[in-house]
């Protein structure tokens, strides 16, 4: 939810300033606002309230002051879950960004075979995360999976049973699904770069690599920031895929914050502490989104077009 917060807020101020002119524009913001308040703000207030209570999900909700917060903050499971979440964030960013950048640049070319490939690349994004997780789980099964079926010993590993392997599998599957999406963003970004810049560079004798690093990459600055924001904030909410694939295991190797919250709330019946974690999750997401906006430069109106 937090990912959408800045967008929705951004949508309202222009509406307010134009109200004096009496157009219909303010009304365009109302549906978004209602949905945002209904599905974003009100549940958030509910969660905040629940974090100061003790509730088993079944009986009465009892106010319990700070006990849930104390329980969560003193639990060694929290720093561990935060650490795993951070690792997932960094690793999936570091893995996805270069790959989707390259694929995006490649797909920006207007050759027909590239258009065909673009459609194929896009397919993973259309599948549900749970379905992907179930499919990968079957493929990676050490006894009945891909490796055992094709008799490739290299593929017969305890993929989901060793901490490092399981973590890598999660990063790989996440990337497999989301690289197409980010490639698409980059493809759009690359197509916006004026031809004339490349032509000038070619006249100056720049090669393919030089053009990439001196023109494409700097011109994609804002695209990179957009894509990174989506990746980083999105990785906070990875849940379904990890839950189905590893259920946080082996031991706690892939127990990210969102999963920790779910397990406490719905499996251990501790809604108070789970809500406290949810609040932490929102704060972390908000902080990250703001930080990335800052990194994007102080003047968001600055042109990224020709001659910028």
């Amino acid at each position, binding site marked *: 939810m937090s990912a959408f917060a800045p967008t929705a807020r951004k949508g309202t101020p222009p509406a307010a300033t134009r109200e004096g002119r009496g157009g219909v524009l303010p009304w365009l913001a109302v549906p978004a606002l209602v949905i945002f308040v209904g599905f974003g703000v009100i549940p958030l207030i509910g969660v905040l309230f629940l974090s100061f209570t003790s509730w088993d*999900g079944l009986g*009465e909700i009892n106010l319990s002051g700070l006990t849930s917060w104390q329980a969560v903050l003193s639990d060694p499971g929290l720093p561990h879950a935060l650490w795993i979440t951070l690792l997932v964030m960094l690793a999936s960013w570091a893995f996805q960004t270069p790959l989707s950048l390259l694929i995006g640049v490649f797909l920006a070319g207007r050759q027909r075979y590239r258009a065909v490939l673009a459609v194929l690349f896009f397919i993973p994004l259309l599948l549900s995360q749970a379905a992907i997780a179930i499919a990968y*789980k079957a493929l990676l099964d050490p006894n009945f999976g891909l490796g055992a079926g094709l008799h490739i010993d290299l593929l017969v590993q305890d*993929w989901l049973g060793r901490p490092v392997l399981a973590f890598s599998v999660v990063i790989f599957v996440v990337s497999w699904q989301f690289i197409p999406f980010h490639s698409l963003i980059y493809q759009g970004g690359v197509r916006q770069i004026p031809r004339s810049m490349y032509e000038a560079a070619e006249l100056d004798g720049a090669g393919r690599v030089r053009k990439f690093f001196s023109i494409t990459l700097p011109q994609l600055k804002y695209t990179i920031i957009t894509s990174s924001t989506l990746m980083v904030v999105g990785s906070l909410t990875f849940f379904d895929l990890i839950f189905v694939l590893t259920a946080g295991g082996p031991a706690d190797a892939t127990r990210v914050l969102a999963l920790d919250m779910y397990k406490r709330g719905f499996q251990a019946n501790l809604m108070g502490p789970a809500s406290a974690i949810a609040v932490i999750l929102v704060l972390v997401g908000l902080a990250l989104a703001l930080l990335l906006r800052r990194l994007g430069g102080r003047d968001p109106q600055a042109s990224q077009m020709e001659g910028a």
Partner: protein
Amino acid sequence: MDSRNTSRRTFLGLSMGLPLGAALAACGTSGPAKPGGGASGGGAGASYWYLSVQPQEGVRTRAVERFNKANPSGQIKGTPFQNDAYKTKIKTAIGAGQAPTIIWGWGGGTLRSYVQAGQVEDLTSFFDQNAAVKDRLFPSSFGAATIDGKIYAMPCETVQPIVLFHNKTAFEKIGAEPPQSWGDIMDLVPKFNKAGIAPFSLGGQSRWTNMMWLEFLLDRIGGTEVFQAVFDGEKGAWSNPAVLDMLTKVQELVKANGFIKGFSSITADSNADQALLYTGKAAMMLHGTWTYGGMSQDGGDFVPGGHLGYTNFPGVDGGKGDPTNTVGNPGQYLSISSKATPEQKEIAKKFFAQGVLTDQEAKEWVETGGVPILKGADSAWAGSKDADFLNFVYGIASNAKVFAQSWDQALSPTAAEVLLDNISKLFQLSISPQQWVDNMNAVIGQ
């Protein structure tokens, strides 16, 4: 003029937005206060949620269908769910006041949490008035349905002890006999590994599968009192030396490659652990008797051809426990949601009295390889192709001095989650037995 117009519309928009928001908030936080809820879903009929997975699902569905046919005025609508998904779904639904009329469950700690929240009906007087309904069933099945002296659930379906299955072909291959003691097990492990057969199949990602090993070992080493003390919430009850001994033995077995390679990647829900046994990739499997039905159905010639062997879990040399004791599910349980309407409750009670474990249903359970919790059930399988197995299960269930409930079902959901978490770490060898004991002592009585 325009701006006034706008503000009036703003007001309208707000006045429509607010109730929507309030309604959403009601769904989010004040669920339990809402009486009735979705339970009333389809008019006057009662609803019933139960577990999917064949062949058991079919028996449940047909029991409901038969009841509906006989009672056109009071219908029950059944919805099946997958095991692990159901455990979460039912809890959420009950908490949100959206529980089905009839709640299927395992009794024990989860039932206790429903009772404490006032979410299920007290059935004690129902059983007093309908003594015949109660008297047909195994008395041992009522233990997990009874909380503080009152009965909150109707035992149903089958008795499911956990037993040690083995693949006879695998044993013939290495010329060995099924284990009679823990020592035999540890001796068999290197022999099977040498022959390229995994000694034990295990769906380790499901966690409760690993737990069955701890349950039996602790019982065989220290007797039933050790876990009873935990159940009773005695401080430091896990510090019993038998627990450390048990945990050490489990880790020894893991280190000796006693379990199939990659067991932590396997889940029991996919039945891959059973497949390992009937395809001969693993020689033995400690599992509930409910897997028999699955193995007969999916294993080709494995069960009909007599290649499946079974024994009770062997004793441990020098252990205090009685090797006839068993662990598992003494039955399954049906409770009535206290949020249901009086009509729905009546339908549910009628179903309990007339629709549960009818002769036809009992016969169908026997066909799946299950032993219904009916007294004298053994007469039902005379001549059945599964008679040997059914007799074996009936024997275990009726001879066991103690039929303990699975730990994760006996304990409260909060304690059970910590337990399962630590068990999976134990099997990963990422914590020592002593750390396990310390972690578990911290949540005793919760």
